[in-house]
């Protein structure tokens, strides 16, 4: 059962990631990224991380991808264009990525003593997770909340219109 679920959702993951590369319109890439993230949530559940599976769906495919789709629609992003620079990136980047993948795969295949994942091993309870998070790691948690607050303020400050150029927002709204 575990093997079948793994094969199905790993296939969905890889298909979504390849589709993200193949599609030329950003909205299609965003939707295939949602497929990747939901499949990853199922894989987290298979590995016993139930809280992370829920957080993956809520935070990634819920919040972040909605933000992406919203920006794609707001900026009216069209199909991408191929230029001379992309040809150079393809010539140099493709062999580099193949080498990177080969190095990663050989490293992983040489790891000794990795176990196997079964459905019998049970699920990490969220109580245990929250006990460690709020007792041992309380300071990093609070620092991260400050980071998120700063990010919110930064996003508002960056996206807000400058006073000297009021025509930009009207142009975007007019589209």
């Amino acid at each position: 059962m575990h093997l079948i679920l793994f094969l199905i959702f790993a296939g969905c993951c890889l298909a979504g990631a390849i589709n993200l590369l193949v599609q030329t319109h950003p909205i299609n890439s965003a939707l295939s990224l949602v497929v990747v993230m939901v499949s990853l949530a199922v894989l987290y559940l298979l590995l016993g991380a139930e809280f992370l599976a829920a957080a993956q769906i809520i935070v990634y495919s819920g919040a972040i991808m909605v933000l992406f789709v919203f920006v794609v629609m707001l900026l009216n992003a069209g199909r991408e264009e191929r230029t001379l620079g992309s040809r150079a990136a393809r010539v140099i980047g493709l062999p580099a990525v193949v080498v990177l993948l080969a190095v990663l795969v050989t490293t992983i295949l040489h790891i000794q003593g990795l176990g196997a994942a079964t459905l019998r091993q049970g699920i990490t309870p969220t109580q245990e997770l929250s006990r460690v998070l709020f007792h041992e790691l309380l300071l990093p948690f609070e620092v991260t909340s400050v980071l998120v607050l700063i990010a919110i303020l930064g996003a508002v400050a960056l996206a807000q219109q400058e006073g000297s150029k009021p025509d930009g927002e009207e142009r975007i709204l007019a589209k």
Partner: protein
Amino acid sequence: MSFIQQDVPLSWYLLLSAALFSLGVLGFLLKRNLITVFMSIELMLNAVNLSFVTFAHQWHAVKGQIFVFFVMMVAAAEAAVGLAIIIAIFRARNTLAVDRIDLMKL
């Protein structure tokens, strides 16, 4: 029947993670749209999260899962700021093609 009850080696999860990371790098290098480049970065973060969860499962360590939680929060902050920067770039240049955004001054 034995095929159904078979366990999955954890190295398969790591191989999937490596494949997703490589596809993310490939998208980062090949895509020419600023938003799609940003999505490739999110794909790489997800691939690394998968290997974190795999190793947390291997060593029965809760802290590996908590690290993934922190990565998710930082990724959310990064997405908010990054998309705001993309909106600001689009207002200044009126384009999202990365090849045309090659000057630092306006």
